[in-house]
């Protein structure tokens, strides 16, 4: 049975919590947490502190001499740079459209898979496979054998519909990259929604049927509200991963043509690897992190609700 975790709120009851825990006892409790906590703080927070520092420095790693103080000049560059704004905008477009379309498809596929039919297990396995393919492999296979204008399978299959040797990656670069993101993430959404569907109490559906409710009405009035936390969870987790999408951009279009598919990760990658501009990339990184924190504050609230941590101030 698939059930969203409800045990979370009852967690403290599992442990014995004496009223006046001694200092020693409190540390004994914390001890097992410390290695992981310290590890994560060191590895994930220090780079961001260093990023903050470098964002105020002039530093090109390919040039001799160290970093020099730059004041806010890196930030001025970031805010006046149309390249950064463009990358930011494309990141938002790519993430939002991929997550939303993958979720719509995911709900549809989950409804299909929730029915009994011959070979259901096999179809389920087929549908989850795209998620398991290495993203770099998926990107290269889509760019070559699938979408190539001269010998690609997609053009061949679309021939009856009047499509002739379309150069997908140069004509529709953004759509092509997003399509591959959707192809890889629809299985994820399908699995999460399917778990929600299977956790739906059969009695309510039975009752709706007896009351003469149509399939569509039942879905809208009963199933969708029940699925809501699952859909929120899928959107949340999908966004966390998809906002960092790099492999498809790097390997399908290399950010182009021009900057047509340059999203934030690819932009930062270019700044560091080809412009050698650590300071500039750091300032762009800091701005990215601040924007992320704003979005994440809402996301964490959503997390708390989905996981039913009532009253958790995230």
């Amino acid at each position: 049975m698939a059930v969203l975790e409800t045990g979370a709120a009852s967690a403290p009851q599992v442990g014995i919590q004496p009223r006046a825990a001694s200092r020693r006892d409190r540390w004994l409790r914390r001890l097992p947490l410390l290695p992981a906590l310290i590890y994560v703080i060191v590895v994930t927070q220090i780079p961001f502190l260093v990023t903050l520092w470098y964002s105020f420095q002039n530093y090109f790693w390919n040039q001799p001499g160290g970093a020099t103080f730059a004041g806010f000049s890196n930030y001025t560059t970031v805010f006046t740079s149309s390249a950064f704004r463009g990358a930011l905008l494309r990141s938002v477009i790519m993430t939002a459209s991929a997550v939303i379309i993958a979720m719509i498809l995911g709900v549809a596929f989950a409804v299909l898979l929730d029915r009994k039919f011959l070979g259901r297990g096999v179809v389920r396995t087929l549908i989850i496979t795209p998620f398991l393919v290495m993203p770099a492999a998926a990107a290269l296979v889509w760019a070559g054998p699938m979408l190539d204008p001269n010998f690609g399978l997609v053009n061949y299959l679309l021939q009856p519909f009047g499509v002739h040797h379309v150069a997908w990656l140069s004509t529709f670069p953004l759509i092509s990259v997003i399509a591959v993101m959707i192809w890889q993430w629809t299985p994820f959404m399908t699995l999460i929604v399917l778990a929600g569907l299977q956790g739906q109490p059969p009695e309510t559906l039975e009752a709706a049927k007896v009351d003469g409710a149509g399939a569509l009405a039942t879905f809208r009035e009963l199933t969708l509200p029940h699925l809501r936390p699952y859909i929120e969870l899928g959107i949340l987790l999908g966004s966390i991963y998809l906002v960092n999408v790099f492999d498809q951009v790097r390997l399908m279009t290399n950010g182009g043509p021009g900057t047509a598919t340059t999203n934030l990760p690819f932009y930062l990658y270019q700044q560091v690897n080809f412009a050698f501009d650590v300071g500039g990339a750091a300032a762009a990184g800091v701005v990215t992190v601040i924007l992320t924190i704003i979005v994440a504050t809402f996301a964490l609230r959503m997390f708390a609700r989905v996981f039913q941590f009532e009253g958790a101030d995230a």
Partner: protein
Amino acid sequence: MTAPAATAAPVLGTTKPARRPRLRELSSQVGWGVLAWVVGLAFFLPVLWMVLTAFKPESAAETWPPQFTFTPTLAEFRLVFSGWGPFVTHSVVATVVSTVLVLLLGIPAAYALSVRPIKRWRDGLFFFISTKMLPIVAAIGPLYVIALKTHLLDSIWVLIILYTAMNLPLAVWMIRSFMLEVPGELLEAARLDGAGQIREISSVILPVISPGLVSTGLICVIFAWNELFLALNLTVTNAATLPMFLISSVPQEGLYIAHLSAAATVASIPVILVGWIAQRSLVRGLSMGAIK
């Protein structure tokens, strides 16, 4: 035999005319089944095409129209296996070592957030998840400089360290969800026996949650195995992983589609197989333990 369904509908006054429900139901079932199969096969098609192309001779891989019948050859696979040695070693080391580290750090942490929770276990949990939301890409420049100065650039350790940090939050959430399911009586009994924390974890909790640990490990393996961004930025040759091998299989000139497909197939197969086998735990892992 069809009495209940047949009588129910007219009595409730639906506008639909009475039909033979069994037959109608059966045909709609077959219809949905066919649709599901079509969707499933369409989604699988690119993977199938990748594998098929991998068995083609290079000359048959870039033709118009695409060839569906050909004499299969293992030539491209042989070529892949002759060149992938260092890459696969790096991938295996980075994946296995980081996953082991994640479990070693994650198990005690999950314990302190579930079985014997610290006072602010909620804050702890949300700290871990919040680090997943910080885009690592934002810090890539400084990470490069840090790696350079600590002589970790192009070393397998830089990947191990970062993959561990990348997967640890996910593992803590997931392992915690398994620990919450350990029956309270079991823990109670162990405590009455005077078991300390370490014995409580090793002899009571671990045996119960071992299937959960396996699925946690699998999720970590999937993410570490497939990772490209960090590997591409922080390694060159000494620690280059399989995704980078894939990139190197695309040459500047000449025919390469069959070779690329063979490399992509070989690189993807381990995770595909793992995922197929662990389908059920996949859902739980991907939802960080929210969905059982």
